[in-house]
């Protein structure tokens, strides 16, 4: 007798009114298998996951059939799948930080699943939770609240809480978003061990590295449809679809290295950082850091998360004061010569002011020429009509390009880019970096870059400042 597939999806579609947001989806995950959905945000992969969970917003409608562990239900009958939550299918949400109850200690959140979902007695549930936490090296965290955890720890806690009732199928939503290389490794290990315990995984990601490492089967999504499906290794090695090829090329691992900018060795540095140190409360972030940055240089700031990379950048910009040491700008630089590109472009604009107004204010303030901005925007391939929107009505990639244009308008000597693309899709990320490279070269502007992605640092930066100890 054949074992039932862990998940079988037939002709699944998600509709908003008459408009199909996701359509013609059919795939199967064998028991213990792995299936990866690769695509950028907006491709419908998250909607697909929600449709399988039975968790779509009530404005959306769903067609087709979903079978979990052999039990087939019409996809539209979402509530019937609720009963299996935690027991037969589980979801590891993205941003595990937000998914944990902020007012409850870690152990209780894990034990809760044992007790309430798996119906273990209370004391045994606590014991099991302790054991599970220990297995992932989280014993210390048992009596902490989520806000005291790092992102990686929170993710492992969320995994345990999800996993505790022993659901054989787990849907994992963007598990590596915003994580650095070490943490990505941890996540991979976590998923592999889950698989080793016999779980079937449906992994939704835009991380090509993760998709490759997980193996199993893989599908690429674009505009709500699966454009390519096959064994992961095959698809990634020999993409058939044009979009898949582009997606793969956008992976920083496949970028060509940037040519080193021509910097005169005797050129005077635009900023000189001497022996700066900074503490956060009682905890020293870093100390004794020296850096001389010259015009046109590209310098990466590296170090483990929590090592104060953003703080260091802000000290260089003059936004924060160092506890010790000094930062000296080259004489003759305008006050606005140092600029910053933020991690979240949506947070970098006044939220209730239309973009055009924001930019107009800037042009007026510095008596600039709007024509220059127009030209910049054109080079960023931004439609002028976008400016009539509010910041949250513009996509992240577009907004980051507008932010870049705004910064370049100031003709800066140095740009501090703080995780400028960590919230963007690979293709958009590549785009933004290409534009950045082009303008840095033209303007002979220095770049201080913070990114968790070691590949980007390798390809882009000329040298690095290491804050880690």
């Amino acid at each position: 007798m054949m074992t039932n597939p862990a998940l079988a999806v037939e002709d699944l579609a998600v509709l908003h009114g008459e408009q199909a947001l996701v359509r013609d989806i059919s795939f199967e995950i064998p028991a213990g298998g792995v299936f990866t959905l690769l695509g950028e945000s907006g491709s419908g992969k998250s909607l697909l996951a929600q449709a399988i969970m039975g968790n779509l917003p009530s404005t959306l409608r769903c067609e087709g059939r979903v079978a979990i562990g052999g039990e087939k239900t019409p996809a539209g009958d979402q509530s019937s799948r609720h009963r299996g939550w935690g027991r037969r299918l589980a979801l590891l949400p993205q941003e595990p930080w937000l998914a944990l109850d902020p007012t409850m200690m870690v152990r209780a959140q894990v034990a809760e699943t044992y007790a309430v979902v798996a119906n273990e007695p209370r004391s045994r549930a606590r014991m099991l939770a302790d054991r599970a936490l220990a297995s992932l090296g989280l014993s210390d965290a048992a009596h902490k609240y989520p806000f005291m955890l790092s992102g990686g720890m929170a993710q492992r806690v969320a995994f345990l809480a999800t996993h505790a009732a022993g659901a054989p199928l787990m849907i994992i939503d963007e598990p590596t978003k915003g994580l650095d290389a070490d943490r990505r490794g941890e996540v991979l290990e976590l998923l592999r061990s889950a698989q080793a315990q016999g779980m079937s995984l449906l992994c939704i990601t835009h991380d090509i590295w993760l998709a490759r490492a997980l193996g199993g089967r893989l599908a690429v999504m674009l505009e709500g449809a699966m454009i390519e499906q096959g064994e992961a290794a095959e698809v990634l090695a020999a993409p058939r679809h044009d979009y898949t090829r582009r997606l793969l090329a956008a992976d920083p691992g496949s970028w060509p290295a940037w040519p080193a900018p021509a910097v005169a060795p005797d050129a005077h540095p635009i900023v000189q950082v001497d022996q700066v140190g900074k503490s956060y409360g009682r905890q020293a972030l870093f100390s004794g850091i020296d850096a001389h940055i010259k015009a046109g240089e590209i310098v990466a700031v590296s170090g483990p998360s929590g090592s104060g990379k953003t703080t260091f950048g802000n000290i260089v910009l003059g936004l924060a004061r160092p506890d010790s040491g000094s930062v000296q700008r080259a004489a003759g630089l305008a006050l606005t010569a140092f600029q910053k590109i933020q991690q979240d472009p949506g947070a970098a604009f006044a939220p209730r002011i239309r973009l055009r107004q924001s930019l107009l204010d800037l042009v007026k303030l510095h008596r600039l020429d709007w024509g220059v901005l127009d030209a910049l925007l054109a080079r960023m391939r931004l439609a002028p009509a976008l400016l009539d929107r509010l910041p949250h009505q513009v996509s992240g990639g577009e907004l980051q390009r507008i932010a870049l244009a705004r910064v370049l308008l100031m003709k800066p000597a140095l740009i501090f880019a703080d995780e400028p693309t960590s919230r963007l899709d690979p293709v958009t990320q590549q785009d933004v970096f290409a534009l950045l490279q082009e303008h840095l070269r033209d303007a002979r502007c220095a770049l201080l870059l913070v990114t968790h992605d070691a590949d980007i640092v390798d390809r882009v930066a000329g040298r690095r400042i290491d804050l880690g100890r």
Partner: protein
Amino acid sequence: MRRPAPVRFRRALLAAAGTALLPWHAARADDRGQPHSHVFTAAAADVLTVVGPWEMTGLDPSRAGYMFARMEVVETLLDVDGRGRLQIRLATRWQVSADGLEWRFTLRSNRRYHDGTEVTPESVLACLRRAHGRPGVLSMAGIRSIAVDSGAIVFTMARPFAPLPYLLTHSSVQILAPASFDARGNVVKIIGTGPFRITSLSLPQQFNVERFAGYGGLPIPGLVQRARYISVARAETRTLLVESGQADLAFSLDPPSIRRLQRSPKAVLLAEMLPRTTFIKLNSGHPLLADVRVRRAISLCVERQGIARALLRDPDLGATQLFPPSMRAWHDPSLPPLRTDPLAARTLLEQAGWRLGADGIRSRAGTRLALTLTTFVDRPELPLIATALQEEMRQIGIAVRVVIGNSSDIPAGHRSGALQMGLVARNFGNLPDPVATLLQDFGPEGGDWGAMGWRNGEVPGLLQRLASGTQAPPAQQQADRARVAAVLQSELPLIPVVWYRQVCATSLRIDGASIDPYERSYRISQLSWK
């Protein structure tokens, strides 16, 4: 997301919300008293509840002494009946020397204080001397000394003062046991001689009393044995207490509440005229008011019956003269009544040289006829009457600004001379013989609560004669009183507006309630349960 059957849970929460509203069930369950028609007042089933607006601001007789007197806890040497005639109380008889300078009061024997000690002349003397040493009624009599002489209390006077026995009926001259005072002479406990004694006292709001076995008299079954007084500031609340059956006697009800209670099946109303008059106290020395024509014009514009009907709900209370009919000796039915005639009022003002301006206000030689009427909120009807008067004076061309403050503004304004007009209510029954009160009000300098800046030689003389002349024939006294009333009526140093009727609500479960027109007692010792 979809809601997997949250209905049951919502229902559970609703039920919980329901139980949240149930603390009074607990309160009722807590109730271990005897069953009664009002479940919640079981504690008060055999306790008579009296409510009034007055707070016990202290134990000293000069502060809340009147409350302990009303609840029949304390007594005075003498008392008056409902018609103002002197009655004996702790004193059995009294005599005055021929020259009127020595008064001798003989004390009743075998009376005991609530703590069981005997009422001795010395203990009485101590209370009288204490009262004499403080501001109060005794200070107006001109007492030289008080002493004990062979078991009687002897007052030696500087000059003859006929109303002295009436002064001794005042609650601030109440007699307390020596144990009531601490070493420094402050009252720390109320130990009186009345038919009720205090069982518990929580200042400033409430005290409970029960019948004092040592008072004497036969135990009549059904009489009220226990009672309590609760001070309730708002008239609305007192009315609601009666309506809900929580209170048995409620005093000082405002007219709207009276109307409400008239329709209520749970209360019976008692009414009694009090010797209290609401009048406009005028500064006759003020340049605008010195002219008697202006005063008369103001009097003519006052719609007394209208105010009485609309605001007091009792058209009979419109004051046709200063003294209400309940002051039998002073009210003169033959006196031509005060009239309402705005036309005549305008004519009088024209005659006095006040010409109507464009804004409807009169002026003379550049001076506007604008005055301030001061009143206070202690009696809730006063601001209302002041508002009505303000409009009526505006109709004849007098601009009036109403200032509502504290009752002390009146005597203070009187002393500083800044007062122009004040709307006040004066209790002439403060002392059962009004002569003493009138002497204060119409003395040569006027009085805090009486005339102000009024130059008249005749009235003070007449009053003086009434106060000292014990030997004058009654007919002469009657003529003097009538003359005083007539002069006040024509000169109008005070413009009477309305008289006053005390209304008391009683619950249906008591019998024998009556009102003391001198507000000295609630007469609870005469009440019985139905």
